[in-house]
């Protein structure tokens, strides 16, 4: 699971109002090289919740993302490469996503999060 996907997931348990971002319990992290595409990154920048990405990348052991961003940074190659690495190349392979409100654990196994709910959570 890429951090981009972590950025798109929130707790889906009935009644939860603050389900984003999910906290990460990290078992195993893997890095996979991905072709760099500046246009794609500029496009995704507007869609990503920055704070969640920064926190997520720290959880996976990457501390290079700036806490504060502005769109002018999208001109910087150095910034784009860091953004690229955090967003697309770091994967949570084993672990869990934790609902910030209820503490419910959604397991992540072989890089795939399982968001299926029990009957009483729907």
């Amino acid at each position, binding site marked *: *699971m*890429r951090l*981009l*996907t972590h*950025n*798109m*997931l*929130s*707790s*889906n348990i009935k009644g939860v109002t603050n*389900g*984003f971002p999910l906290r990460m319990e990290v078992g195993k992290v893997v890095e*996979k090289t*991905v*072709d*760099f*595409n500046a*246009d*794609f990154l500029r*496009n*995704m920048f507007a*869609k990503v*919740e920055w704070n969640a990405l920064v926190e997520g990348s720290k959880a996976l052991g990457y501390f290079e993302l700036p806490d504060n961003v502005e769109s002018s940074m999208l001109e910087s190659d150095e910034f784009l490469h860091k953004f690229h690495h955090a967003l697309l190349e770091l994967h949570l392979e084993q672990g869990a996503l934790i609902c910030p409100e209820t503490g419910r654990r*959604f397991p992540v196994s*072989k*890089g*795939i*999060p*399982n*968001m*299926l*709910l029990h009957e009483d959570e729907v």
Partner: protein
Amino acid sequence: MCIMIPKIAQIPLVSSHPEVYDPCDDSFALVDALLADRANLLEHQPSICMEIGCGSGYVITSLALLLGGNSSAYYIATDINPHAVRVTQETIEAHGCHVELVITDIASGLEKRLNRLVDVLVVNPPYVPTPEEEVGCSGITSSWAGGVNGRDVIDRILPVADKILSDRGWLYLVTLSENNPLDICLQMRRKGYASRIILQRSTQEENLHIIKLWRDSETLLEENECMGLKKTNRVKNMNPIPFPQVSVWGCDSRNNR
């Protein structure tokens, strides 16, 4: 002369599992429809592409391949069957692609953040008319069981699609005649969608329709105008029209009335 044939998933590389739906006529029809629409898709330059109910992974892998490489878009697929998601993972890797995967019911957990972000959504839902209690059973049954008129899962997917499709988003949906595709198009029309049957195919058992739907401001305007008296007339007038091979509502709708 060398003719470039667009790449799609290769059957020998598609993984399988006893509890997972193998690519079948419906899957091939959907991919053929995507291939036929490839020029438009390339021009569309989607940045987020999604599949709901990915099964073997044949469709989402084909979409990624026919759009030519992964680096320009984010691909994400869901299935309620954990085996299916694993099989999709193997299929994608065998083709050297990357698609992000989530085990979930439709797009639960993704809906909030994907709100109005998805540019291309492909769905081959469980569409076979079955007794109600077979819907959502675990394993392979859930890959086809669609309840009354086969519409149970489709009718749950449509509002989700409306939520997550971007302003320029396109939905490609597999349906059977028994699902009443005309009614699906009309229902979505009320939410401002234009639609077109882009492929129709009869096999021994099924009469398949691939519907393409997209938001269309003109359709929405027309619908709003019709909310009064005219509406009843129009709906009455539209129903008896036999389902044409290729029908267009919205952009070109004048021709159809």
